[in-house]
């Protein structure tokens, strides 16, 4: 994919959360009354500076992995790109169609999987005919099988996120943001979703992937951004070296890689290291 035109431009982005209810205001009725009588704003507002001046450009067809420790701002970044968080300073520019897949499993959890598929497709702007045409492939892709007739409350977290991903991936989004939504899927689903992400990329979409499974990032992404306390530590197209730096910085065991292909070498017995030359 030699064509590179920007799909997501993040320009000096700062995001600040305002958190209520810290410290002396214990949230009792009496405390609330005193606060209102005294015409004070909540004294206990605390500001959390979650993103501190990020800037980068992502091109059409890129799959960007976002790595970093818990609380480093990965999810915040995705939600800001989706337009769900206001920027304190700076801006995020997109083509306007960003879909965010988070960890929570259901769309409408008191409805059946079947209803969720149909409503999800219609909500994304598909026509009734398109929805009918895509229905079976979505159900097959999700692999929930007979559970499709049951309410999504009864789904395991893995099944829920599989169906959710299948629904969202049925349409080619310009920007698809995946926040650990694939983490609960099994090995088979991971292969399928990996293939679907590649397809979405080739349909000229941009994919952002947050995952703690670094191997998944290595396999799926052509770019990676490493966040630490709301700032970029390192980013680039050499996914493997950034990942290795990240592993080294967090004190993990270095990954043994094949010197030529740079793929991971599995140490399990009976597992042929196919990539060795």
């Amino acid at each position: 994919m030699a064509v590179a035109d920007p799909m997501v431009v993040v320009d000096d982005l700062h995001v600040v959360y305002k958190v209520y209810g810290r410290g002396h205001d214990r949230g009792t009725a009496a405390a609330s009354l005193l606060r209102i009588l005294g015409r004070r704003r909540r004294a206990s507002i605390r500001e959390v500076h979650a993103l501190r001046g990020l800037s980068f450009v992502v091109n059409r067809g890129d799959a960007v992995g976002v790595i970093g420790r818990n609380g480093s701002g990965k999810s915040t970044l995705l939600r800001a790109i989706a337009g769900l968080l206001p920027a304190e300073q700076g801006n995020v520019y997109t083509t306007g169609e960003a879909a965010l897949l988070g960890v929570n499993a259901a769309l409408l959890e008191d409805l059946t999987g079947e209803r969720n598929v149909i409503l999800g497709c219609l909500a994304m702007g598909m026509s009734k005919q398109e929805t009918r045409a895509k229905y079976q492939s979505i159900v097959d892709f999700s692999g929930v099988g007979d559970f499709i007739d049951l309410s999504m409350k009864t789904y395991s977290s893995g099944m829920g996120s599989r169906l959710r991903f299948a629904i969202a991936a049925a349409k080619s989004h310009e920007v698809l943001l995946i926040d650990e939504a694939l983490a609960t899927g099994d090995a088979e689903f991971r292969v399928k979703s990996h293939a679907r992400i590649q397809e979405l990329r080739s349909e000229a979409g941009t994919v952002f992937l947050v995952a703690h499974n670094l191997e998944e990032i290595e396999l799926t992404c052509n770019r990676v951004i490493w966040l630490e306390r709301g700032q970029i530590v390192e980013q680039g197209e050499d996914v493997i070296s950034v990942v290795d730096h990240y592993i080294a910085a967090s004190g993990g065991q270095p990954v043994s890689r094949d010197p030529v292909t740079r793929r991971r070498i599995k140490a399990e017995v009976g597992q042929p290291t196919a990539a060795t030359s």
Partner: protein
Amino acid sequence: MTDQRAPLRAPQAASQDSGSGRLAGPGQLQSGAATATAAVSGEPLAELARRYGLRPSAMRPSVPAYLRQLWQRRHFILAFATARNMALYTEARLGQLWQVLTPLLNAGVYWLIFGELLRISRGIPNYFAFVVIGVFVFNFTQRTFISTSTVMTQNLDLIRALQFPRAALPVGYVVIELQQMLVSVAVLVPILLATGEPLTWHWLLLVPVLTLQTIFNIGCGLAVARLGAQVNDVSQLLPFLTRTWLYASGVIFSISTLNVSGWVKSLLQINPAALYITLTRNALMITERQSAPGSKPYNQALCHTWHTIGQSNGASRKALYDSAYCHSAINPAHLWYYAIGWAALALVVGFFFFWRAETGYGRG
């Protein structure tokens, strides 16, 4: 490979071919730099974004574009409402039967209390049907207010996962209430016939009344949805507001019987809930049309009879109809104008109020 990208892209193409090494294109991070610019051209990122037609991620569409998107989602709205409605009773053993049982039991309670225990008529010829219509019509608006106040928080997952005009959700909730209202109307028909109200052409007026009330509810629902999304306290406060509204709207009594000055009666009568209730009663009940104040030439003596004997317990049948000889609070012919005005006003104000905060839903 188009020409327009050429000046900016040249160095990046090289790095992409090599497959390794740092990204050298505009994707390069300006770490620590005070102003962010594209690495190669030195162009500010904001201008780069503008040049490629990118928009700020949190920008709301124009009103025509928004309405177009909303119209495109009409199948979603309908399917959403139907699915939600069906899901309401899946846990109950009687299942969908509750759709009918709920209004039926409601009517049963009023029959037991007002018809059998209290045996009052309060100056109204067919008091039981009067109350049931009042309660059903008022419930439609009341339930719209209560359910739309939490619609945005209840569907947060959906809002965060998919892109669609958010107004589809409150409108969908109003459609849910409309579907339940239609079931209530079906329950109403045998009640009306059993209490001696004949089936007449006037019943067709129910269609425009219900349409106007639905439009009014959509407008209010949109406004309440935004308020509820921004201030959680709204859903706590609403039950008290709607209960006050209930007593001000002549649901279980006739506004004409109130012992207040004329302008207060007029005000109460032009409040939207009272309007839609009165219009529905006039459409479905011949007794209401015949006894409506102002429907016959004013006659002080007969009007006085109604105010005294007619409103006492055990009033004669004839005295109940004498309200027709009293002055009306509002010219009955003008009721429709007010009903149309309220619907239009609510829809326009509610829509704009909701649309202005479009990008704010799902935040936090």
